[in-house]
């Protein structure tokens, strides 16, 4: 860089901020890290406690009840392949990672979405931030995440939350905004208070859209598993990553296919959950 050339020091500022946060909030981060680690270990422990074959049958039954016979056959065959290929434990690990990050995204995203939808000014403020979170390359989050939470599964989860949280928030806002103004007027005409309007009309009618957001959130966090594995998260992503670094084409595909099977299963199940309440009706 030439001397005397003025450059806005974004990099330096962020470096300093990250350092400051790391020093001052380390105890909070440690606690958070421990909590997430324990959650994941617990889920993995419980799921590995069940015999894989029993679990496959349970999943098939769930697919049959919620989706269709075909989906249950797919589940049966798909998960049997996973077991046969020897990816059962990585699959469970990936599932727990996705599960925890989606739960956290829901717990944060839906309230933020609801609050933003109620205040126009606030949503003007949140939407650009969400765009920023979604479009910023996910790798960028990994580095500070390592500083805050050290290597392991937690920075991976944090990165995938940052990446998938916006879809929950955005679709919650959209769902609530999409409620027809005629129906809102009906609510007003009966003298509903703001919270009654929200919980009895707006949120129930927004539910299909909110569920679509959760579905997207699951897909996005699944897409993050490979990136998460770069900071040490175990699971299918780690398998893919190892295959890539060792140029094992076949192995890479194997692990990739397992991710696809898991993704299809989770996608179809959550898609069905979103419309199960009032079946074909209720669409306006």
């Amino acid at each position, binding site marked *: 860089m030439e001397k005397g050339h003025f450059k806005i020091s974004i990099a330096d500022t962020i470096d300093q901020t990250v350092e400051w946060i790391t020093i001052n909030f380390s105890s909070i981060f440690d606690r958070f890290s421990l909590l997430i680690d324990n959650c994941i270990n617990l889920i993995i422990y419980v799921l590995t406690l069940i015999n894989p074959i029993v679990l496959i049958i349970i999943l098939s039954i769930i697919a049959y009840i919620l989706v269709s016979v075909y989906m249950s056959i797919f589940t049966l065959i798909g998960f049997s392949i996973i077991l046969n290929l020897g990816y059962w434990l990585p699959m469970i690990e990936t599932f727990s990672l996705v599960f925890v990050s989606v739960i956290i995204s829901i717990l944060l995203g839906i309230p933020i979405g609801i609050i933003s939808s109620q205040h126009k000014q606030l949503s003007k403020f949140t939407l650009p931030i969400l765009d920023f979170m979604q479009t910023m390359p996910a790798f960028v989050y990994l580095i500070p995440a390592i500083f805050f939470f050290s290597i392991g599964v937690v920075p991976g989860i944090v990165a995938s939350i940052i990446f998938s949280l916006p879809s929950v928030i955005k679709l919650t806002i959209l769902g609530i905004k999409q409620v027809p103004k005629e129906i*809102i007027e009906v609510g*007003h*005409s*009966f*003298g509903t*208070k703001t919270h009654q309007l929200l919980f009895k009309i707006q949120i129930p009618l927004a539910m299909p859209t909110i569920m679509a957001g959760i579905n997207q959130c699951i897909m996005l966090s699944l897409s993050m598993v490979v990136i998460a594995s770069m900071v040490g998260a175990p699971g299918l992503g780690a398998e893919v990553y190892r295959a890539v670094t060792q140029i094992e084409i076949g192995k890479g595909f194997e692990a990739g296919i397992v991710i696809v099977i898991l993704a299809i299963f989770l996608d179809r199940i959550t898609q069905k959950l979103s419309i199960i*309440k009032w079946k074909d*009706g*209720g669409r306006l």
Partner: protein
Amino acid sequence: MKYESCIIGLKNVTKDFSIANRKKNTNLKENHEDLAVSDVNLNIYKGEIFVLIGSSGSGKSTLLRMINNLVIPTEGEVLIEGRNTQKMSHNEMLTIRQKKISMVFQSISLLPHRTVISNIEFGLEVQGVKKSLRIKKAKESLRLVGLNGYEYHYPHQLSGGMQQRVGLARAIANDTDIILMDEAFSALDPIIKRDLQNQLLDLQSKLSKTIVFITHDIDEALKIGDRIGVMSQGKVIQVGKPEEILLEPINEYVKKLTNDINLQKLISASFFHSLTSEAKEKLIKKYNTQIEKLLETVK
């Protein structure tokens, strides 16, 4: 006199949307014309069916919504049993909407995620009425509109006419003194419309509410209205009993409105029977001469 006490009073009520439009506020009711209602004075009496008639854009929907403050008037006073709604606190207004005024809408007014019975319960639920009482009242009003057996259907499983009945039942369940009906039957086909009109008259004879009914159909207005108010370009230009509107139209607009009424429907309307034989003759004569004129032009 049947109408001794005024329950809804409108005094110099004006709604100017230009102010709201300039602020780019999305109002509950979209309106193309800025001055939707201008300087309306109107008294509506306890126990009557008052019909507001006018073509679309005449401001009748806006006027109706100002009665329960869904649209806030720019000027003037709205008095409900003598109390000015503009001076009420937000909570008082909510109470008025819960206990005093209920509303029936034109279409898509049922909550799609709720069953028929829980749609009807909605108003009571908002008020915090106990579940058992709510269900009892909801079932009662469902029976009144002749839809018992449909409690656990969803709105999309019902026909348009049935949905409107549920909307009516929902308003009845709240047991308010005033029911506002915004083109409640306009979207229905003629036969179902007639059935619902009859049902409304039947219900009214049992419940004797104060009903403000909006329509653009003069036959409907004559059939169900105790009194009719004609609206045009944001103004109420004539108010009177059906026969007054027919026999003494105040200007060309009202004359045009009453020209092409359905004579058969007129004769079957209940107000017609209560007229003196003199007035009946006058009416028939008026429309007879019209028919004769019409026949001549055809020849």
